[in-house]
């Protein structure tokens, strides 16, 4: 019996682009947070234009200067301008945070999808492995990995990726399992679409929005983790302007030069806070139960 089933294309625009404008026009807090994130991104892009000095320029005669009109955020023990280094720090932290999360999400989605699609013993093995990885507190796991690989930006990113992919794998697997039960997926399968096509065309497109949203929620967290690793001496070498290592440098001067550690910390806090608010707003918009209340 020949039966033709026509699989209709999804009529609505993708979830993300439908929600984005609404989220930010409705809540002033979310809009404010988005503005702060945008400002930081602009600062990172335009750092060489904005920074009053060079990030490595030393002025030994003006070392440990408190905030003045010449040095708004003061100077460090080598006479480097802290405002300049905070501005340049954004150039490092933002891409690192995004890269670490993107890599973790990519790897996790891949592994989690394999588990969700393959089912059976493969799924069992993968999910037990993620359980194990999740038993290690993130910073400790990342610390072990980046210590083993050696300090440095690239290795810190790899460490965060290895520490974080399991939660994405779990999330992606859950989404795949849910998507598999949807009618349009069943319809596609009934229409004779291959497993690969069903996955690429119908499952992957469904699970991508929530994963992207989870990722935005995590960028702030990744920036914090990177700063923690740097603070512990597992990030870039000390001359590179990085917020976590700048705070570490301030540790030895708490009773004479409070400004060394204060401003880089405020930078991390403001960016992480804004990213968390943006991520939260997106998540609330996605979760209809929360939206209703």
């Amino acid at each position, binding site marked *: 019996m020949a039966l033709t089933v026509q699989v209709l294309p999804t009529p609505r625009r993708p979830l993300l682009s439908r929600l984005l404008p609404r989220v930010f026009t409705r809540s002033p807090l979310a809009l404010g947070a988005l503005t702060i994130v945008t400002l930081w991104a602009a600062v990172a892009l335009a750092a060489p234009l904005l920074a009053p000095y060079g990030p490595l320029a030393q002025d030994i005669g003006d070392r440990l200067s408190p905030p003045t009109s010449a040095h708004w955020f003061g100077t460090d023990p080598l006479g480097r301008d802290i405002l300049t280094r905070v501005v340049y720090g954004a150039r490092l932290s933002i891409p690192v945070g995004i890269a670490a999360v993107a890599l973790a999400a990519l790897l996790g989605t891949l592994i989690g999808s394999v588990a969700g699609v393959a089912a059976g013993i493969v799924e069992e093995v993968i999910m037990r492995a993620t359980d194990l990885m999740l038993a290690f507190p993130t910073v400790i796991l990342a610390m072990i990995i980046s210590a083993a690989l050696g300090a440095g930006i690239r290795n810190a990113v790899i460490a965060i990726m290895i520490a974080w992919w399991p939660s994405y794998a779990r999330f992606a697997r859950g989404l795949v399992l849910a998507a598999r039960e949807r009618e349009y997926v069943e319809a596609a399968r009934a229409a004779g679409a291959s497993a690969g096509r069903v996955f690429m065309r119908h499952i992957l497109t469904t699970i991508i929005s929530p994963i992207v949203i989870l990722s935005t929620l995590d960028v702030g967290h990744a920036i914090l983790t990177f700063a923690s690793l740097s603070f512990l001496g597992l990030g870039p070498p000390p001359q590179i302007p990085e917020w976590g290592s700048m705070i570490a440098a301030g540790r030895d001067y*708490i009773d004479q030069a409070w400004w060394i550690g204060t401003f880089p910390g405020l930078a991390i806090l403001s960016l992480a806070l804004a990213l968390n608010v943006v991520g939260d707003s997106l998540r609330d918009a996605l979760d209809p139960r929360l939206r209703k209340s």
Partner: protein
Amino acid sequence: MTLLAYVGRRALVLPVMLVGITLLSFILSHAVPSDPVAVNLGELAAANPDTVAAFRHRWGLDRPLPQQYLIYLWNLAHGDMGVSITTHQPVLIDLRHHLPATVELAVAAMLLSLVIGIPLGITSAIRRDSLVDQVGRSVSLVGVSMPVFWLGLMTLVIFYARLGWAPSAGELNPRVATPPFVTGFVVVDALLAGQGGIVPDALAHLALPALVLSSYSIGVITRMMRGSMLEVLGEDYVRTARAKGLSRWIITLRHAARNALLPVITVIGLSFGGLLSGAVVTETVFAWPGLGSYAFQSATSLDFPAIMGVGIVVASVYVLVNLVVDVAYAVVDPRIRMG
């Protein structure tokens, strides 16, 4: 399923998890480009072929990796986690000395998070959109966005360097004689040694690091408690209780808060992992002689026996805490066992 069967099933998985943890720690610390022989023995001893051979044999480094792992497991089963390169002491003894300080810090931080987070979450929910709610929401947002090491540094700048209200970093005033090591918990050891006078000093040193460390879990617990409470307040049985004319307090505490606490219990277990992560950075800021300081010191000096030891202990503690939390959840909510 009865409660006993549930606990039994969960407990059966435990040994498998623990062995898995040792395997993962082993893989992580052996998938390293650096040579453990050179790092462990130092240049002088590494130049002596006999010493190198003996070392390799002792740790089974002359054998294939799977066999090395079994040797490690065998040694571990006999209470031998190897010798730390940095302290030259058995790792087990090092862990025994560093664990209590971290437990002290983590427990204090968890207590603070519960004492602050739960009431704040509840009040935030029942007075929705009020000033208290704004404060509660801000606290939870700032808490989860806060770089803990920076907060630690700032509290030291303000409360120690500027105001002089808090003592300096460390577990005790350097001029105070440390009580002899019995349990490792300074307060307990001080009481055992009859040095009750140093207890206030010990508690004063604990206050700032515990508060700083709790910032993240305060944020998580406040947010979770608020969300869960809001959900419960919309339930039919709360409306019924209100219709019966029960007082606001009784409804809030007896009907709503007790049920709203359920999902928060799970979060408490999960945020314990965040607490252990935070302990590493908090301990380095406050010169706190715990597992975090030890982990940091061993990770940066490629002290692999020590790193594996810390990894195994921390992950096991985390798994055990979550087992206890899940069982507690099953005790208070029978639906979990049925599912």
